[in-house]
């Protein structure tokens, strides 16, 4: 660094540690809370250090749930996983194909389709909740994985990311492929796809998290308990009408709900950061 000012470095570390504390505090409190038994949760304030009911709580929550309104968390986790995977894989596949078509082919209405996709950037689900719900309902897709995922699968950001990336692939590769007798599909499979690996990985992380964290949509589309996802399921536990929330179990559920995406982010941190920064350009 330019200057050697130990005071400044000390200050920097102090600020960062404070920042980390602010950011990580909720996680700590939640984790600790999930390790205590219910009676402890009725004493103010909530505990700051671990209890010894952790395994017990998690098992309860996974297998039995909280009682009346709250189904066991295990199946909900599975639903979340399925939803996240379908969305991530589906989105990537569809966007790659569309981006490929737009970049590497000339055909009538090409720009028209491009703008069509572009416009969807401006129509997040929240802006058309009721009518989209109606369409899904009319198609009989409520309470199904299809209904949960398909309306969220066609997004413009992924398509643009791939389009941008494809534009940076040297012309010569495609020309060489043509001379080598490779048709468009073969070129896509043998050359473009391997080159796109990092982009795909980065996008996978972002979309997996997006899919897993969906709240509003599953809230509307899943009326049957067996299709609840864990993120939406939590609100039911917290806002339980009849009884006070069983905080230790709620927090255990919260931990279960946030651990998978956090693991994905941490494991693929470098890729994910790169993908995020590139995709918004």
């Amino acid at each position: 660094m330019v200057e050697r000012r130990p005071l400044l470095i000390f200050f920097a570390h102090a600020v960062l540690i404070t920042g980390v504390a602010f950011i990580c505090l909720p996680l700590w409190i939640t984790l600790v809370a999930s390790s205590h038994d219910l009676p402890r949760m009725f004493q103010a304030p909530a505990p700051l250090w671990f209890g010894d009911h952790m395994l017990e709580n998690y098992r309860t929550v996974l297998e039995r749930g909280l009682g009346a309104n709250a189904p066991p968390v295990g199946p909900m986790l599975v639903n979340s996983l399925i939803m996240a995977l379908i969305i991530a894989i589906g989105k990537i596949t569809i966007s790659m194909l569309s981006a490929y078509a737009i970049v590497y082919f000339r055909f009538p209405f090409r720009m028209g389709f491009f703008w069509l996709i572009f416009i969807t950037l401006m129509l997040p689900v929240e802006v058309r909740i009721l009518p989209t719900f109606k369409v899904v309902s009319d198609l009989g897709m409520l309470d199904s994985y299809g209904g949960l995922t398909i309306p969220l699968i066609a997004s413009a950001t992924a398509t643009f990311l791939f389009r941008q990336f494809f534009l940076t692939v040297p012309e010569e590769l495609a020309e060489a492929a043509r001379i080598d007798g490779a048709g468009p599909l073969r070129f896509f499979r043998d050359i473009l796809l391997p080159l796109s690996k990092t982009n795909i990985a980065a996008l996978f992380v972002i979309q997996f998290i997006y899919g897993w964290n969906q709240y509003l949509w599953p809230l509307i589309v899943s009326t049957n308990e067996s299709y609840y996802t864990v993120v939406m399921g939590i609100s039911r536990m917290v806002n339980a009408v009849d009884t006070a929330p069983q905080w230790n179990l709620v927090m255990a559920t919260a931990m279960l709900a946030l651990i998978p995406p956090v693991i994905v982010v941490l494991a693929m941190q470098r890729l994910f950061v790169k993908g995020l920064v590139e995709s918004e350009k």
Partner: protein
Amino acid sequence: MIKRATFQGRALPYALLLPQIAITLVFFFWPAGQALVQSVLLEDAFGLSTKFVWLDNFERVFSDAYYLNSMRLTAVFTVTSCVIAMAVSLLLATMADRVIRGAGVYKTLLIWPYAVAPALAGVLWGFMFNPTIGVLAYVLEAVGIKWNFYVNGDQALFLITLAAAWMQVSYNFIFFLAGLQAIPRSVIEAAAIDGAGPFKRFWTIIFPLLSPTTFFLFVLNIVHLFFDSFGIVHALTGGGPGRSTEILVFKVWSDSFRALDLGGSAAQSVVLMAIVIALTVMQFRYIERRVHY
């Protein structure tokens, strides 16, 4: 925009585009069109009678005190949250750019909240501030503040603002750090040689060069706060107490699914659409002026 080397194919491009276009038409444009249409109709919940009413629904919406309340709340919530999130993340990013040892650890510890769903963030913060047993509520009571966000509307608004800011910090941090690292080291060194101390360097050189990133994040934060915070509100306050946290997106959902006010909620949706379009256009416009060097 298009490659020089292209492939021949009559049907192939259309086939490749088909999945995305099909889904887009069925689940984006058709419903959006429906919303537009619905916003100029007056229809009862059972669909028995429909009347074309021009902009009556819009008038009704804009003269509804609750809606105006919602707009005001949303503005306050969004701007406050955005400013807090951006200031905090900029500070953290600047510090993280400075330290050499432990930079990676700090980065990891500050990035993970990106993975947390807004609804979960709401639950977590709600727990910490729970009037009965919340750790932070306890601290507040200890310094003499009567804390109960289930009853006090301002406190509820404060809480969701805090939760939303918490969520946005990690996202902003990533971008600010990238922006800082994109500034050439030699420019900073030249400034040092030119007699500018660290503080002066930050305000006269670094901050101006970060302005594209800052503006971009500002717009993005606003968009996120408009929509993603549905989860926070729904899980934490349910719009209350007494509509004190009923932000626009929440109201749309509430009016659609609880009040079953089809025309009104459609009109609200259209208004939201207009806001998003305006923000997106602003964002793309400015991107053209982004590159400095």
